[in-house]
């Protein structure tokens, strides 16, 4: 039996369907991200798990127990909000102790557990401070300690790092992942940030327009997206509209405009659509060849230095292709220079055709 099970979960607000027929199972101790653009229904799903929204249809069970009928305050779920949502009139220690007070934990035990939780987030020294006298990162830690101190069945994180600056965000990501693994708490993170989702999660659940599109571990979702949307939303990709020319043993030949190249077998949907497919090639899978020796020829229109890698825009008959190369010395191609582009046919992904969203 799965730990947390969402089945056919649906939420409608009047005419608008926020979440539709959402199925997900989460194992004990797992870290799952709900990932998608704003308005995809991820926050609504989180609110339903937390008990702040009632599902229109479907069920939520925790170890086989129905959660929908349980009030939010009895669900034993810890939540960290994007706005931190600390109690401004209470000190850090009082904030963290609140959930224990509600559980009628004896004062001595309460104090011990508050200290423990604050130590976990390295805030022992600030126990007596008020939230307004703290930085964003510190407040976020208090919120995390407050949610964890009650030893929740599930930890829900609602865009917890979005308000932090980039460097602090990376630090907090590592720390969050460390704490989650040490405590072994089942965690669901809601985020629109695909790098955050990939960095933290055991599995990502990509949502689009209220529906779950793909659930997979981050590498799998990145390398083998099921749809055009997942492929474009997770990382950068070169998205081309193509047509399957002929099937071959172990793959097919695909045409984009006048150019043809080899690719893995097309998705089943391609046959129905007259062979139309979306061709997705990740920029880091594209390699440079001397001019005239590539699968496609082009001209380097722009080059951006990003520290650990170079990002090139190459004008080709297929359109402008992005190419990412590791920074292993000076740039391989000058701006304006002619260059050939090539890739391993196995790295091409053919996806069911969808009109550009």
């Amino acid at each position, binding site marked *: 039996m799965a730990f947390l099970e969402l089945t056919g979960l649906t939420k409608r607000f009047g005419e608008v369907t926020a979440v539709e027929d959402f199925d997900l199972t989460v194992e004990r101790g797992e870290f799952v991200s709900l990932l998608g653009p704003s308005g995809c229904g991820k926050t609504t799903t989180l609110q339903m798990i*937390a008990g702040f929204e009632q599902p229109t249809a479907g069920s939520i069970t925790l170890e086989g127990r129905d959660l929908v009928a349980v009030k939010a305050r009895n669900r034993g779920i810890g939540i960290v909000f994007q706005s931190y949502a*600390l109690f401004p009139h209470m000190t850090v220690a009082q904030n963290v102790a*609140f959930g224990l007070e509600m*559980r009628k934990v004896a004062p001595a035990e309460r104090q011990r557990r508050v200290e423990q939780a604050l130590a976990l987030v390295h805030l022992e020294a600030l126990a007596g401070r008020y939230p307004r006298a703290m930085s964003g990162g510190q407040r976020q830690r208090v919120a995390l300690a*407050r949610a964890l101190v009650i030893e929740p069945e599930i930890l829900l994180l609602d865009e917890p790092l979005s308000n932090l600056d980039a460097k602090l965000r990376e630090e907090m990501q590592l720390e969050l992942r460390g704490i989650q693994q040490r405590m072994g708490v089942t965690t669901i993170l809601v985020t629109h940030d695909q790098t955050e989702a990939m960095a933290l999660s055991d599995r990502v659940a990509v949502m689009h327009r209220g529906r779950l599109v793909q659930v997979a571990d981050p590498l799998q979702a990145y390398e083998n997206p099921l749809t055009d949307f997942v492929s474009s939303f997770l990382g950068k990709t070169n998205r081309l509209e193509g047509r399957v020319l002929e099937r071959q043993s172990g793959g097919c030949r695909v045409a984009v405009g006048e150019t043809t190249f080899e690719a893995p077998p097309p998705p089943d949907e391609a046959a129905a659509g007259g062979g139309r497919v979306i061709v997705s090639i990740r920029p880091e899978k594209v390699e440079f060849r001397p001019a005239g020796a590539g699968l496609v020829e082009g001209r380097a229109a722009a080059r951006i230095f990003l520290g650990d890698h170079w990002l090139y825009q190459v004008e080709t008959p297929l359109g402008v292709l992005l190419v990412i190369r590791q920074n292993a010395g000076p740039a391989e191609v000058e701006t304006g220079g002619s260059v050939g582009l090539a890739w391993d046919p196995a790295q091409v992904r053919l996806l069911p055709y969808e009109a550009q969203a």
Partner: protein
Amino acid sequence: MTRNGPFAFLFSALFVVFMTAPLVVVMGVSLTPEGFLEFPPSGLSLRWFRAILENPDFIDAAWISLYLGIASASLATVLAVPAALAIGRRRFAGRDFLLALFMSPLTVPTIVLGIAFLRFLSQFGLNGTFVGLTLCHAIFITPFILRLVLASVTGLDRTIEKAAESLGASDFTVFRRVTLPMIMPGVVGGWVLAFITSFDELTVTVFIVNPSTTTLPVRLFAHITQTTDPLVASISTVVILFTVGLMFLIERLYGLDRLLVGGEGR
């Protein structure tokens, strides 16, 4: 911070003089040794302050005003806080009507209100009673509290209450431990404003008092229609000092600008 130019300074100075001049005059007059109103006073004497003690009916009236202010401000607060919570963050049919209803004492001419209250209280046999006065004052001062509490409610981050709920707090505990402390500046500010409004209310009150429940403003008003001795000035001075003291206390506790103007502060 930008410095004000000479004209802005002049304007501000004139404004302050205009606002405080009557108070200065009243306080000056109260120090006169003479038996009539004169300004500037020809000498300095506490004669008319001693006179207050010889007029127990003024002191009784002051106590009634004080009790009335506390009772009606507290009653109005109990009404206004739930109303502000409902109006401030729920959408329901009749919300605008409810808000307009609570605010209406500000728009109805006070003399009309006075006559209406008189009629109303007579109907229930409450005319001239302290209970009747309290009810009418509570209605009259509710808008002041409602406005301030509403301002602090609308700025409230609801996820804070959700966080408390998910930590296991019941609805009432959320209100008592989280919501109320967060809107407290608005509640206290509203209470003080309401208390002061009740304390010096005359137009409405004059219709609904009887000799045993005469408030200080009504008593003063009655006094100056008969005589013009400086007793009214000395009593006014005491009231002014009392109000200033109250404001000072609130300022120390909460910060006046935060209460009356709003915003973060502290």
